[in-house]
């Protein structure tokens, strides 16, 4: 095994760039990335991950663009937003791997819960009975939480564009805003959902895996340019994170150790326990990490649904360009990570609608509630 590894590292596959600067936002789902760096999985593949804590997704996007960051823990939807030029100049991006499944939630305020709104259906009832501009927050307009929150509201007959007011709030400010009564609910990654529950100011109305079981989350993202210049570095990076994910899956002790580590001030800065991570997964024998084209396409179908994309793109062509399946497969082989048979997967979302990557234009146009 060790010999195999050094062969990878020493041969023509030697990483072109050894020190890789990677941005992350303080959220539980950056766990495998941080452990890949701290436990030395990176060095095993001939690279050194230099972690950089970032304050905003907009800044992650800009720094990927200007090369201040080589890669980042980033929202899946944001990568496709930049690829399609939503809100910024279009730039060719690359998704190297998916980093996590699940681990996010929709939280409603305790005062809404007292009026009976504790899940999607009862929320719809309360909104109908007492109409006012209900305010809900997500983390970035094209991002994962925005798309899951929109989907969840619409699945319960609530029109997210017309019936509620939607705002963007940085994750660490969610709880304070809910406490101050400035908003009625939000969708965000842990620990910011459970924090509201612990502080007794909110209830969990839905976990994101109720919206889409084993949904994609953050990705390891970079630019197409970086992949073109440093393919071996990218492959090594994927391999290191896969191994870290496998280490996390190996035992509860490892998961707790990761949570303790990322609870430190220079990472996420909040104490957490594994039982409250809402089905967060980092590896699951590689099932988490494969950059399925259907996952990438889904975000574009939702961008189209909500009018962020004004026309239908060539969904499959764009996803095939952005998601780096070839590099991922090579890294999976290096780490003996099982590979799925195809590049699409079939999922049934909360409204019972199946998404399997086929007929994306029709899927995007099929929803009753849309822009």
């Amino acid at each position, binding site marked *: 095994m060790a010999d195999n590894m050094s062969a990878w590292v020493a041969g023509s596959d030697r990483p072109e760039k050894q020190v890789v600067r990677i941005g992350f936002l303080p959220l539980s789902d950056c766990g495998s990335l941080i452990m890949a760096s701290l436990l030395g999985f990176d060095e095993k593949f001939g690279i050194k991950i230099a972690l950089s804590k970032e304050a*905003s997704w*907009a*800044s992650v996007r*800009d720094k990927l663009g200007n090369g201040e960051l080589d890669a980042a823990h980033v929202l899946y939807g944001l990568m496709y937003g930049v690829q399609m030029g939503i*809100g910024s*100049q279009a730039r060719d991006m690359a998704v190297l791997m998916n980093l996590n499944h699940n681990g996010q939630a929709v939280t409603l305020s305790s005062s809404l819960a007292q009026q009976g709104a504790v899940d999607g259906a009862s929320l719809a009832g309360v909104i109908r009975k007492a109409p006012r501009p209900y305010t809900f*927050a997500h983390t970035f307009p094209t991002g994962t939480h925005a798309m899951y929150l929109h989907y969840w509201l619409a699945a319960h007959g609530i029109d997210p564009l017309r019936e509620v007011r939607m705002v963007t709030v*940085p994750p660490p*400010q969610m709880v304070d*805003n809910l406490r101050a009564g400035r908003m009625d609910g939000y969708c965000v990654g842990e620990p910011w959902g459970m924090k509201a529950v612990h502080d007794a100011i909110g209830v969990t109305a839905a976990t994101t895996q109720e919206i889409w079981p084993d949904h994609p989350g953050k990705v390891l993202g970079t630019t197409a340019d970086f992949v073109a210049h440093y393919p071996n570095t990218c492959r090594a990076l994927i391999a290191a994170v896969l191994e870290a994910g496998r280490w996390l899956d190996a035992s509860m002790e490892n998961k707790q150790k990761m949570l303790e580590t990322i609870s430190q001030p220079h990472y996420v800065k909040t104490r957490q326990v594994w039982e409250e991570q809402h089905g967060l997964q980092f590896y699951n024998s590689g099932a988490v990490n494969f950059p399925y084209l259907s996952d990438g396409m889904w975000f574009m179908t939702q961008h189209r649904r909500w009018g962020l994309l004004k026309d239908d793109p060539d969904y499959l062509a764009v996803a095939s360009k952005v998601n780096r399946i070839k590099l991922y497969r090579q890294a999976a082989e290096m780490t003996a990570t099982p590979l799925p048979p195809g590049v699409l997967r079939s999922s049934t979302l909360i409204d019972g609608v199946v998404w399997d990557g086929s007929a994306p234009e029709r899927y995007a146009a099929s929803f009753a509630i849309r822009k």
Partner: protein
Amino acid sequence: MPSRAPLSKPVHKLRIVVVNTITAAGHEMDASLQAQAQRGAALRIGLLEAGYDIIASLPADIYLPERIAQLQPDMIIIDAESDARDVLEHIVIATRDERRPIVMFTEDAATSSMDAAMAAGVSAYIVAGLQAERIQPVLNVALARFKQEQKLLAELSDTKHKLAERKVIERAKGLLMAHHHLSEEQAYQRLRSMAMNKKLKLAEIAQRILDVEDLLGN
């Protein structure tokens, strides 16, 4: 110490909104928040010294989009390292058909990051510690650049619009030709006289013909 060059008046009285980092009471501020707050204060002083009109200094809270919509500033300035960047992103996307220039300020003088941010839609970068008299040319360049970009975008959408109009006219002509057994030239003349009679643009009358066709479902 050399005497300071007299500040020329800003060519245009810009209405500027500065977005501030939230420093919630009762929370210990970490070093980066503290640095942001200091940069913000220095920038506001610099702008005022340079004769700019800061119409508001807003906290980056959930009311920011409404406040910006009310104030309609000529320019928004925000710290590049602020977590409120994502709140502003919301505004950028929600108002992408009526964009306004956004200027960042930062401590990072690396030109590469300025180029990338400007490519991403930021109009200019102000580096922290910049002298008051240097702010003015930076903002003037930012505004000029933004206006130029908007002009190009407007021209592009105008061209697209004209192209779309031509398509509508072609389809309406096709319908007239089929229904009334007209030649292309006759169909065009029919359209033109209908447009003149109704005092509508050619594309408008063409669209009505298509709408009626849709309604009757032929």
